[in-house]
C-alpha cells in the first residue's frame, strides 16, 4: 500500500515540480564550490566594490563587504540546507523512534513520552532555541543541528504514535501476533513501512520549519558565524539595507521561500496521495 502512495506522488505534477526545486537546491549546494563564480568569503575591495548592484560581473550584486552575493547564496545553500537536512533527519528519526516506542510499549514508557511531548509542545520553540543559543553562545553548525533537531521531534512522535496505535488494532497485526510474530519484527516489517508516507510528510514539514528558524537565529545575531555564509546571515546583512540594496534582500528571500514552499507542497501532495490511497483501498 505504501508503495502505491509513492507511485501516486510521482504521478502528481505539483509534487514533481516541488521535488525538482528541492533537488535543484540540493544539487546547487553540493556543487557550490565548482559552480560559484567567486570565493564566497573573498573581499576584493570592501570600500569601492561594496553594495554594487547586480551586473554581468556580479549577477546578484555584492554585499557590504564586497563579496559576491550569488556565490554566497550558493555556498549558503550548503550550510542552510545541510543544517536543515541534518536537523530534519535527527528530529524525524528521534520522533519516529520515540513515537514507536510509546505506542508499542505502552504503559509508563507511553506516559513519559507523552508527558515530554506535552511539556515541550507548550514552549515556544523559537524562543527556546534563541534562549539556548543566547545563553551558551553561538553554535557550530553541528551543534545547531543537534539543538534544532532535538527540539523538533514532537510532531513526528505524535503522528507515529497515533498511526502505530491505529495499526496495532488492525486485523493483519492481530493475526500476525496470533501466529507468534514478535512485536519488534512486526514493527520493522509491517508497521514502519506502513507509516513511512506519514513520516515523510512530517519530514517535509520539519524541513520547512527549520530553514526559517535558522534565519531567525541569524536575525538576532546568533546564527551561523561569519565568514561561513548561510541564507540566514546573508539576509541579516540585507536587513540593514531594506530600502537601499534590494538585491541583498530579494535573492536570499527567494531562496528561502522557494525551498520552504517546495517542502510544504511536497508535504501537501503526499498527504493527498495517502488519502487517495486509503480511499482506493
Amino acid at each position: 500500500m505504501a508503495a502505491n502512495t509513492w507511485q501516486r506522488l510521482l504521478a502528481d505534477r505539483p509534487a514533481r515540480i516541488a521535488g525538482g526545486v528541492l533537488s535543484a537546491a540540493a544539487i546547487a549546494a553540493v556543487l557550490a564550490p565548482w559552480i560559484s563564480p567567486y570565493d564566497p568569503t573573498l573581499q576584493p575591495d570592501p570600500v569601492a566594490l561594496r553594495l554594487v548592484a547586480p551586473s554581468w560581473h556580479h549577477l546578484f550584486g555584492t554585499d557590504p563587504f564586497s563579496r559576491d552575493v550569488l556565490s554566497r547564496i550558493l555556498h549558503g545553500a550548503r550550510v542552510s540546507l545541510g543544517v536543515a537536512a541534518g536537523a530534519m533527519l535527527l528530529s524525524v528519526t528521534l520522533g519516529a523512534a520515540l513515537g514507536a516506542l510509546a505506542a508499542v510499549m505502552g504503559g509508563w514508557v507511553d506516559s513519559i513520552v507523552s508527558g515530554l511531548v506535552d511539556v515541550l509542545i507548550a514552549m515556544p520553540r523559537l524562543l527556546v532555541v534563541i534562549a539556548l543559543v543566547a545563553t551558551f553562545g553561538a553554535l557550530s553548525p553541528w551543534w545547531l543541528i543537534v539543538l534544532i533537531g532535538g527540539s523538533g521531534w514532537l510532531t513526528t512522535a505524535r503522528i507515529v504514535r497515533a498511526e502505530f496505535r491505529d495499526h496495532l488494532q488492525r486485523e493483519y497485526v492481530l493475526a500476525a501476533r496470533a501466529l507468534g510474530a514478535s512485536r519488534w519484527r512486526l514493527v520493522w516489517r509491517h508497521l514502519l513501512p506502513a507509516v513511512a508516507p506519514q513520516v515523510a510528510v512530517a519530514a517535509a514539514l520539519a524541513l520547512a520549519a527549520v530553514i526559517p528558524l535558522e534565519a531567525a537565529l541569524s536575525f538576532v545575531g546568533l546564527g551561523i558565524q561569519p565568514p561561513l555564509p548561510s541564507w540566514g546571515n546573508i539576509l541579516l546583512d540585507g536587513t540593514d539595507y531594506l530600502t537601499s540594496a534590494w538585491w541583498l534582500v530579494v535573492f536570499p528571500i527567494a531562496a528561502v521561500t522557494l525551498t520552504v514552499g517546495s517542502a510544504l507542497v511536497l508535504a501537501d501532495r503526499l498527504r493527498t496521495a495517502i488519502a487517495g490511497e486509503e480511499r482506493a483501498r
Partner: protein
Amino acid sequence: MTRRLIARALHAAAVCAVVATSVFALLQFAPGDPFATALDGTDVPPNVRAEWRARYGFDLPPLERFAHWGGALVRGELGYSASRHRAVAEVVRDALPRTLVLVGAALILGFAVGVGAALLQVRHHGRWQDRVLGALTLGGVAMPEFLVGLLAMTWLGARWRIFPVAGLGSLGDATAWPLWERAADYLWHLALPAAVLALAVASRVARHQRAALLGVMREDFIRTARAKGLGEWDVLLRHALPNAIGPVIALLGLALPSLVGGAALIERIFGWPGMGLTLFDALLARDYPLVLAAVLLATLVAVVARTLTDLVADVVAPRRVPVP
C-alpha cells in the same frame, strides 16, 4: 466533564512544574550576570555588582534560591525583577495584556481570513482563484514572520508612511486626547503588527481548512445535500464547514506556542512591549525571576488555550473528521 477539567488542570500544573524546574536548572549554566550591564550595554563596576547581587539574594547557592523562588510562587509572589527595579508581577501585569491583544487580534483576524480564503478556494476548486490563493497562502507560510514584519515596518511605515512605524500609540500629547480618539489611535498602531501575525495565521488556517473541506466534500451527506437542490454556497457553509472546522480550531490551539514565539520578534520590530519582548529582554539581561515568570506564563497560556480549543472543537463539531 468536570472530571475531565480537573484532570486537565492537574496535567497543566504538572507540565508547568516541569517547565519551571528545567528552565531554572538551565539558567544556572548560562554565563553572565543579571547585574553586569545596563540596557544600552554600559557595564557596571564589579564592586557595585557584588553589592547588588547580595541585595537581591543572588549570592545564595542555586538550590536555596530555587527553594526561595518556589516558596514565594506558592504564596502567589513572582519575585523581583532586578533589571527593571520592579516586582515581576507588575512587569507582567503591564506586558501580558498587550500580547493577549496582539495575538488575540491576529488569531481572530487570521482565522476569519483563513477560513474565508479556504471557502473561496473550495468553491472555485481547481480554477484561478484557487491557484492564486494557494500560492499566496503558501508564500505566507514559507516567508519567516520577522522578515514580513521588517519589510512592512520599513516600507509601509518608514518609507511610504502609510502606517505608524512602532509603539502603542501616538506620541506627544496623545495622552490628553478623548477616549475614543485614543482607542482609534491604539487600534491604528496595532494594525500592522497584528496584520503581519494574522497573515501567518491565515495562511496556515487556509491551507488546513481547504484540505479539510475538500475531504468532507467527498462524503455522502454532501451529495445528499446537493441532491436536495441546495446552492453550492449553502452546501459549503451549512453542511461542509461545520463538519470540517473542528480540526482547524484544534490546530490553532497547537499553533499558539509558535505564534507566541513569532510574536516575540514582531513585538521587537514594532516596539510593542508585550510578553515576548519582555522574555527576550529578560533573557539577555539574565533576569532569572522575570524569565521564569514569562516562560511559566507562556506555558500556562499554551496549555489553557489547548484545552479550550479542544473543548470548542468538540462543541462546534462533535463529529471528528481525521486531520488530513
